[in-house]
């Protein structure tokens, strides 16, 4: 998947957030736990990304870049 596709998923959920800039999505409670689940579900079901519980951490969801880096790590590992 591409970074643009990820931005698409995120903006779908929160069109008001600038995901290219925002660095504290979890810390500042811009994303709730249920947003994280919705994003993770979309990645797993829509793009076949194999997320596990160990990946669902605030640091992986604090920014779009961090999340994309996680996805790339998982895709390379697969």
């Amino acid at each position, binding site marked *: 998947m591409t970074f643009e596709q990820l931005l698409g998923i995120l903006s779908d959920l929160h069109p*008001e957030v600038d995901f290219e800039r925002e660095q504290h999505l979890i810390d500042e409670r811009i994303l709730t736990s*249920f947003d994280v*689940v919705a994003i*993770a579900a979309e990645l797993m079901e829509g793009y076949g990304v194999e997320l596990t519980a160990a*990946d*669902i951490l*605030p640091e992986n969801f604090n920014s779009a870049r961090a999340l994309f880096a996680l996805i790339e790590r998982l895709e390379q590992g697969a």
Partner: protein
Amino acid sequence: MSRFVDYLNQTAARLPDKLAFSDGETSFTFWELRQAAGAIGEALHQAGAAGEAVALCMGRSPRFVAAFLGVLAAGSCAVPLDMQAPRDRLKAMGERVSPRFALCEEGTQALTQSLFPSSCILSYETAAAGAFFGPLGKRTSGDGLAYIVFTSGSTGVPKAVAVRESSLMDYAAALPEAVGFCEGSVFGCQAPLYMDAWLKELIGAVVKGGSVYLLPPELFVQPLTLVQRLNAWGINTLCWVSSALSLVSRFRTFDTAVPEGLELVCFGGEPLSPRQLNRWMAACPKARFFQLYGPTECTGMSFYYAVPGPVPEGASIPLGRPFAGTTAYVLDEQGRPAREGEIYIGGPCVMAGYYGDEELTRRVLQVDPVNTASGRTFYATGDLARYDEEGNLLFLGRRDRQIKHLGHRVELDELERAALQLKGVEACASTYDHDRGRLCLQYVGAASVQEVKLGLQQRLPGYMVPSRLVQVPTLPRLPNGKIDRNKLREE
């Protein structure tokens, strides 16, 4: 026993040094909880708050629990508020109840003063530090209102559900026996404290002497850490909304860590998928699992069902049977008992009414529709159900446009009314995607998606803000001009 705080008198005398409530930072033993609640009760009583509504403007901590119990001890009515909710909504709630008193703490003082400029505001820190010589509740008697909580209302204003102390007492007597709370219960509380869901943990502690850990909401963004925390705190009892259970089980969390000591898991608030329930049952083979069901208008939960074993995919988990003291009917549209129809719930659990809205109260409360001589009051839930072959009640859906999202009730009408107040929204229609658990709103108008989202965030609590917004040229309409909701859903 006639007062809820009588239970705390007993438990504090029996188990003074046992942990009652903790959030990991602040902890209260039962004795400390009684003393804090007693001092707050005295302060409120001296201020003249007996029989009055007291807005609870406090965050999630054991102090909130002491404040809630202090309000009950004073013979006042607790009105807990979500201090994170949008200001406009807090104002609307405040105006609906107009509490003459408010209890705040250091961090909420400014907001409380701006919400209730003409109320008498007490500070928790000052009130709880006062002297108190027990027992609790000696000052008052009688059956007043215990609390008022807010739920989504289809008219666009949140409904204020007012519950008597006798209803709370009924729940306190029935719930622990039905599901088996005991002194050894250690609860991991997920529910917010400004609704009625956390009464389960409150009852488990105050009535039975169990201990409660208030789980920080941040833990639910990290399922693995959450499970590790449950184990570290020795938590053996969960009463969680179904979506919170799913959140843990769906990421294969149990491959890495399982909640080792779990003995009892109660879930409710919305249907739980059999797949997620079965994962929990496999990970926690020693635990008993209960589905709980009930509307806020009937004081917490009203029905319970002990799940006997794994549930087949696609099956629905029965609602079970009512608690002791509660009666329920399934009535058809003519009001006759039927195999399939609307659930009516009656008994001491039924609310006093919607505070400040007699008209709406009259519409949902009525005398026993089957046995009019019983004198009991019944609540028409709006929930549709049918009996299966074994006599179990199965949930079918709603009569109206209310949906359950993340355990919260959402009136789609309320969401639409809020959207129509925004500049640049001419028409709109909302739907709920049950499969993905997503609220959607389609609208016609010049406002951008960002503007609509921001506008709704300023007016509605987070769980009511649709995650999907779509600007459309027109909405599908039926020949009579009404919105074609079936067509909407297909899109």
